[in-house]
């Protein structure tokens, strides 16, 4: 029994169960930042004249998409570096990117849906942009299903790196679809709105003060902190697997 404990200590590196100092600092800043942007969005920014309080959901809705963009982008980086270098840490980053990105894009869909109920008078419509955002979510859900379906570790990492790179195309489509299919009703806040857009509002100074901090938080701190925690979890799961193998083989 004592032997196994010694193995566990060695393999799971129990002494590192406390996150590194930088991660702890990052987590604290992220939590404070999240509270701060919520305050800016819910209190500091003025109420929209046309849409009222519901417009405030936008301070989460759009940043969450860009948070997903960062996370999925890191999946591409992780996948490419895994294929080039072959170190499993890159694959862990890619996996963390998919999970965090999927959570963010679900937040994006959910908040959009809640906003659309009073403004478009429906929870959901098959608008090109909504459709492509939903397909983006499904692509990354497919990533997780595929990943679970491959038993061999080496093969799993290589295949999922490839799929993670291909899947990013759906993110780009969601971003640029209004150029391909112009008849979307989804409003564009920055830049020219499509002709049919419904529910747009002016990017007033209130929007800018609340939006920019929130956008910066969701683009950088939030995905990176969450992904770091997820990578650490994956490391420990891998270590646990190795330990199981060793105990079973002895």
């Amino acid at each position, binding site marked *: 029994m004592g032997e196994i404990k010694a193995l566990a200590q060695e393999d799971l590196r129990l002494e590192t169960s406390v996150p590194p100092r930088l991660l702890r600092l990052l987590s604290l800043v992220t939590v404070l930042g999240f509270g701060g942007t919520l305050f800016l969005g819910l209190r500091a920014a003025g109420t929209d004249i046309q849409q009222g309080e519901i417009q405030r959901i936008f301070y989460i809705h759009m940043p969450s998409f860009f948070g997903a963009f960062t996370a999925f982008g890191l999946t591409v980086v992780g996948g490419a570096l895994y294929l080039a270098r072959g170190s499993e840490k890159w694959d862990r980053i890619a996996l963390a990117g998919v999970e965090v990105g999927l959570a963010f894009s679900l937040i994006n869909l959910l908040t959009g849906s809640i906003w659309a109920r009073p403004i478009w008078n429906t929870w959901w419509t098959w608008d090109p942009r909504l459709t492509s955002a939903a*397909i983006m979510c499904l692509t990354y859900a*497919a990533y997780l299903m595929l990943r679970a379906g491959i038993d061999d570790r080496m093969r799993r990492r290589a*295949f999922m790196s490839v*799929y993670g790179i291909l899947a990013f*195309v759906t993110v780009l489509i969601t971003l640029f679809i209004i150029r391909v299919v112009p008849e979307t009703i989804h409003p564009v806040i920055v830049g020219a709105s499509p002709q049919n857009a419904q529910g747009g509002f002016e990017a007033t100074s209130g929007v800018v003060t609340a939006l920019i901090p929130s956008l910066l938080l969701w683009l950088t701190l939030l995905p990176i902190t969450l992904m770091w925690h997820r990578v650490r979890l994956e490391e420990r799961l891998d270590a646990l697997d190795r330990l199981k193998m060793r105990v079973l083989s002895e």
Partner: protein
Amino acid sequence: MKTPFITCVAAIVRKDLRAEIRSRELLSVMGLFALLSVLLFSFALELDRQAREEVVSGVLWVTLIFASLLGLNRSMALERDQGGLDAILAAPVSRAAIFVGKLLGNFVFTGIVGFVLLPLMTALYGMNLLRAPLILTTIIGLFGFATVGTLLATLTVQTRAREALLPIAMLPIVLPFVLTAVRATKAILSGAAANEWQSALGMLAAITLIYFLLCLLLYEYVVGE
């Protein structure tokens, strides 16, 4: 000493064609599926003249993509079950050549289905689908499906769930092809100005080229050691 690229590609395509001529397995399954799908759509949607013009491009592309999925799954499963891929991998052949060879084989089969489907739909739906720009769109679109499909079928055939995973993996990834192809088809069939379908067709061609290069680069990682 590696065999020249073209020789490898030609050998793989020739092998696939010969196997198909002998068994006729892929084409009969895909062809029958495409026929059933077109009939099913016309009953399910109870297509009257007006509705037909609206949905015919959607029916065409949905049928083509499902027929492609069917063919790709079958072609890769055959390759795996009969040890064809292992044999090819054992040969000193570049992975890119294997990719292009398999891609062209799959493209030829889906292409044949496409060329049966166009006159068939022309007859059944009373609309002329045999127009040069539409044929070009079909060729490029099917080449795009075959590109992504060959890579993903090679990947999913090595997973536990095998056949079940290809549609899930492939359908979201081919969305850009479907989007632009349906757009071009719609514009061509409605007799819109040439620049309207040309821009969609140009976009389709650009997407196909990007995917082709991406898949060519990535194929060596999915084909195994």
